[in-house]
Each structure stands twice: as C-alpha cells, then as structure tokens.
C-alpha cells in the first residue's frame, strides 16, 4: 500500500508512495494519446468481434460477418496442397514402379510421400526409418528379406499383407510346431546345427545328428544351407540377422512353438499411389534388391 505520497523536490512531480530501498516512484501522468491508442485497440477488437467468430455459447460460437472458420481454412489449405501434388501423383499412377527412379524429381516425391505414409501407418511396428522392433517386427533398412526385397515383391507384400485372412491373395506360410514332433534333445541338436550355419559352433554340439534332422525336416523350406526361401517367407538362417533372436534358447523356442508375424493388407486401406510410394520408400531404405 502506498504510504507516504509526497512531492519530489527535483522534478516537482508527486510520488506514488511506493519506495524500494530509498528509490521512490514518480507518478508521472501518462500521455493522453497513449490512452487513445488503448481505446483504439478496444475499438479494433470490437471490429474483430463482428467480423470473426468470437462469442462462445454452449454449442459453438458466433460466426462473424466474414464467415471465416479455422476448419474451413484447413480444408482449403489441404485442398491447395492436394492440388499442388496432383501432377506428381498422376505421374506416379502412370509410371511403372521400376521406372519411377529414372525421374529424379518423381523419385524424390515418391520417397517423401512414402516416408509420410510410412510414419503414419507402418512405423508403429517397423519403427521410424524401418529400424524394426524386437519380437518379430523386421528391420526394413537391412538387406535381409523374408518375402523378397525387389520392388515387385515389396509391392505385393504391401498390397496383400502377410497371414492376413481378409485378403485371399495374402502371403501365407506356417512352420509346424516341432515341439510336438521332435524330442527335447532333437530340438537342441537342430538348434546347434542352425547356429553352425552362420559360423557359430556351440561347444559339445552333435552337428551330425542336427544336420540329418535339418535336411529331413527343415531344408525343404529353409534351404540346404539355410539360405531361406522368399517364396515361402522362410527366413534365411545362415546370416547375422535374427527375427526372433539369435541366442540358442531363442532358436530352441522358435523351433518348439514358432511365432508368426501378421501384417495387414494395405491394398484396400491406402490408395494405389500411396502403396506405390511406400514401395519406393521401403525399397530405398538401404536393402532394396
């Protein structure tokens, strides 16, 4: 509270009565034009009240004379963006997948468009940038492919999905649960042999027995040398990349009761242009064949 209002000796102006460490505040009157500027801003705000949505009521607000709304503005801006993209999208629609990379601008557009669609639809499982996720969500940036890494193969996978029952053309394969077929010991032998395919030989392993079991039961799908088979989505076993983990117990677990990943068919959900752009993007992540 102001305590002692007095007249300042030097300037002749009254003080406000406020004092801090001996410094007193002068009550210098504000210039009138400053007040008028303040009134002008109030008048200006009234103009806004009339022109733009302003006064809220329970459901909505006054619409304003101009009829402007942020929602309409967004719709307009989206339409403008779509119109600006139309030319490129049309070109993508009319160009063969393999030919898109011939046109640098179109290729860049497809990659950026694919990236946007990827981050919206795919990154939840496959990770941003195709970094993959533990537990069976494949890395898309490496050079290992379950169902093939050519443009065509990626496109088919995207279009029809994997083990997606709603799509009759979906990619499908299932590994039998060898826990019902092999004994525990046999499963261990096979796991040891699988590890040896990528140069890891566990101590005291009976590779002979494992090799026989592998050749009779597994090689049909995974290949004699464990090279995998894209047509069946059978993973390559002689490399450094493991979908469900490369430790011995993880391999044992996968042989005993295999897990299978599921991916939705995007053909019906995304339009053809977007699927094409996604294909280009995934193919360009670093492992495209």
């Amino acid at each position: 509270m102001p305590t002692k209002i007095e007249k300042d000796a030097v300037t002749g102006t009254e003080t406000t009565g406020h004092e801090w460490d001996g410094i007193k505040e002068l009550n210098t009157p504000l210039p009138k034009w400053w007040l008028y500027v303040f009134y002008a801003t109030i008048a200006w705000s009234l103009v806004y009240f009339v022109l733009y949505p302003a006064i809220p009521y329970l459901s909505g607000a006054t619409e304003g004379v101009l009829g402007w709304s942020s929602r309409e503005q967004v719709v307009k801006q989206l339409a403008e963006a779509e119109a600006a993209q139309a030319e490129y999208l049309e070109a993508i629609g009319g160009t063969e997948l393999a030919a898109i990379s011939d046109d640098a601008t179109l290729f860049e557009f497809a990659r950026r468009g694919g990236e946007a669609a990827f981050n919206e639809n795919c990154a939840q499982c496959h990770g941003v940038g195709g970094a993959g996720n533990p537990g069976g969500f494949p890395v898309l940036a490496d050079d290992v492919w379950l169902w093939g890494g050519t443009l065509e193969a990626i496109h088919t996978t995207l279009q029809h999905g994997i083990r997606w029952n709603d799509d009759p053309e979906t990619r499908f394969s299932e590994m039998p649960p060898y826990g019902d077929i092999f004994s525990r010991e046999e499963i261990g032998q096979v796991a040891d042999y699988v590890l040896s395919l990528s140069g890891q030989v566990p101590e005291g392993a009976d590779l002979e027995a494992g090799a026989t079991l592998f050749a009779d039961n597994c090689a049909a799908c995974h290949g004699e040398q464990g090279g995998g088979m894209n047509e069946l989505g059978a993973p390559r076993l002689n490399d450094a990349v493991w979908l469900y983990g490369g430790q011995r117990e993880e391999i044992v677990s996968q042989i005993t009761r295999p897990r299978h990943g599921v991916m939705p068919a995007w053909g019906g959900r995304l339009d053809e242009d977007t699927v094409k752009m996604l294909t280009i993007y995934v193919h360009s992540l670093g492992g495209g064949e």
Partner: protein
Amino acid sequence: MAEQVVAEDVASVREQREALKQQEQARAGGAGAETTAPAAAPGRDQPLYADRVKVYPRKVSGTFRRLKWAALGLLLGIYYLVPWIRWDRGPNAPDQAVLIDMPSRRAYFFFIEIWPQEVYYLTGLLILGAVGLFLVTSVAGRVWCGYACPQTVWTDLFMWVERLVEGDRNARIRLDRQPLSAEKVGRKAAKHGIWLLMAFLTGGAWIMYFKDAPTLVAELVTFEASQSVWLFIGLFTATTYLLAGWAREQVCTYMCPWPRFQAAMFDEDTLIVTYQRWRGEPRGKLKKGENDDWSKRGDCIDCKACVAVCPTGIDIRDGQQLECISCALCIDACNDVMAKIGRPPNLIGYDTEANQIAQEQGKPRPRWKLLRIRTLFYALLFVGVAAVMLGQLLFRDTLDINVLHDRNPLFVTLSNGDIRNGYTVKLLNKTRERRAFVLGFEGLPGATMEVLGEPAQGQRVPLVAEPDSVATYDIQVRAPRSQVTGETRPVSFTLTDPDSGETVVYDSVFRGPER
C-alpha cells in the same frame, strides 16, 4: 555596440504543464474557501493523463544546424541512392548492389552474398551497431539521437516543410489559434499533402532494398506492383507520416527505450550539451544602464532562445534531461545571442561534467580525457568484433558441408554381419558455377560409401552441386563388423574440389552395437 535582444515569449513543456496544474488548483481553491489555496491532499488531484503540450521550434542557424543539415543530406542521400547502385554478379543473379532477396533467400551487399545459414553476420552487425552506439555515447553523448536517428532526420525534414508552408514559430502559433478559414485549411492541407508525399517516397524507397529498384519503380508507375508491395509501402508511409509528422518528440520521450538507459554510458568526461551554470547565473533580463555590469551578474539574459529552438520543448538550463536529444540547436541559438550582446560564446556548449564541477569550485579546466577505461573497452570490443567479422568474410568458404547422422535407425546389421550407418550429406555451393567434388570417408578401415540414386560407391565418391544451391545426398557407409568397436567411433567426411584443391572436413560419428 550590443544589439537589442528581444526575449522570446516561450516556456518549456515542463513550465507549461506546471502552469496548467496551478491554474486548475487555483480554480478548485477559488470555488471553495477564499483563503490562500490550501495545498490539495497529495495523491488526490494528481492527473492520471497529461495533455500533450505542442512544441513549436523556432528556426535557428549556426554551426550545429549546418552540421545537422549535412548529416541529413548525407543520410537521406545514402537511403535513396544505394538501391540504384548496380553490381554485376553474372547471369541468373540480381545486379543490385544492396538487396535482401526474400523469395530466393539471399542477401547481397556489394561483393558479399549471405545465405540464411549465415545470419550470424547480421548478429555481428547488430553487435557492432550497439557497441558503436555505446562508444559514441560515452565520448560525445547522444550523437545518434541528435544527428543520425531516422526519427530525428525525418522529423527535421518534416519540420522544414512545416516552416516552409506555415511560417516560423510565431506564425505557426498564430495559425493554430486562428479560427477556421480558407487560408488555414489551405496551408494545413498543403503541409499534410507534402508530408504524405514524402512519407510515400520514404516507404517506397524502403521496398527498393527488397526488390530490384528499377523494376519496382516501373511496376509502381504502371500500377502493376503486387498487393504486398502496396501494403508495405502503405505501412511505411503511414508510420513515417505519423511518427515524423505527428508523434515527433513523443517517440523519443515515451516510446524509445534508448533515452532511458543512455545515462548509463555517460561519465564525468562525456561531452554533453550543457548550460554553464557557473557562468550564466545569476541570470536576468538585460536592461541597458541598469544591470549591464557583467562582473555583477551572469551571462544568461534569460532571453529563452534556447527554449524556443528546442525540438523537444525543454529548457536546457534545467540540467540533464531524458528528453534532450543532444541536437545542439540551443548552442547555436545561444551563441547567436552571445554574439549580439558581446559576450563570449558557448554559454551553452558541449562540455564535460568534470569541467562544470571544476569551474563551480573555481578550479582550472581539467584536461579532457578521451581515453578512459570505458571508452577503451568499447573501442576494443568494437575493433575485436569488427576484426572477427572481417576475418570471417575474407576467409568465407564458397563451399560448405553439413552431415547429419541418421537417427532412425542409428545403425543396421547386414546379413554378413557388416554394420551400416546412414548419413544425410548437404553440400552448399555458394558459387555461380556447377561444381564437382570428391567426398571421402575417413576414420574407419575397410568402410565403403554408397550414394542413394547414384552408381558411385567406394571410399571416395564423386558428387555434384548445382550453382548457388544446396545438394542433398543420402549416403550409407558400411564397415566390417570386426572394425566397429564400441557404440560410437569418430569419423570424418572430407569434401574436396579437385580443381581448386579447396577442402572442408566435417567430423561425425559411426555407430555400432554395444558389444
């Protein structure tokens, strides 16, 4: 020999305010008791808002007025002529010497071309401006305010027009007091018309720094200029007209922050516009034969010429005030009077606080110290910043490289166990020619690069950057698992121009698994 000096009928803004307040108090007191107006309870009748007291500066001539005209001519000349200077930069580049090209994100200043990435040059300029301002202020007071500030220059120009149309101080006061007449309306209309025209030219010239000047003028004349051009010209026309025509000293007193803290740069050796109290007092009107014995009185004859010419309406004899813009016109006015009454000049002059104190105590004039810790510090700072900027400019690379390590994924394990990292490499080619470079990767034995969309791969890859643009490449580096030890490993990209030998290096990291 001394001419008759007529005292001006003038009061400073402060005196006028005081008089108004007393009038009101007297009226309030008169209505009540007849006793001597009792001091109204403080805090009650203090007005919250003050009417503006209009200032009618009188014409003055002298050294500082001439200096001010010279500064005004020079500064306006620079402002209006610089956009017309041409500078050949070759094809596909604007040929205006000074241009801020917003649409293509370039700023040109003669031989210098600044990219948005180099906006630190602007920061440097602002620092130089601030330090320069501090230096000048600590040496000679508010030189900027008095001579160079656009507000001062344009207000001066607008006042000159006002004087031309409406006459000098007394004529203007008379005109304002007159009832409405054809002559009054005519003069006012003429004044505001010229003001608006000048404001328009000011606003128009400002746009020339952002658009090619001849093209802009052609577009304006044929009314083909874009809406935004008209909008900005309108904006600057309005602000110039309002600030220089109407607001004037109110800008300095109420809007500008600089007068509020400029006193912090002053010390007792700063040259400031000062009334020599020791010499002027006791002041009084000069009456022939009555009080013209100069040994018994001060030199100030209270003619108020200094108040009449002041563009901010203050009385310099009241001492240092934040309203004082140090334009020194009161010095001119006073010297004029001193010459007429045959007294030495510079009763008001540029002087130091130290000398004032010495003179009042009857001591000899102390030596003026230009070199003080304060001025030396500001000067060194100024030179230092200027040197750094100049060095930066002289050794500015015409090529630059930026490398961004991919964050998703940080690294990828490939089928044979190799580790691969992705990088986005941006090459900034600041020349007007297409340039071919060789990009090398160092710090990791056995590592090879692959460029997305390009056939090249290996330890060195050729890359191309189009003229005056940024080339972006996605580059993937793979290295044998045995070489990748630890989570991160410092590596570097080297970009070489095989023709000129120019090389820039960018340090980055290569990431791998923990074990």
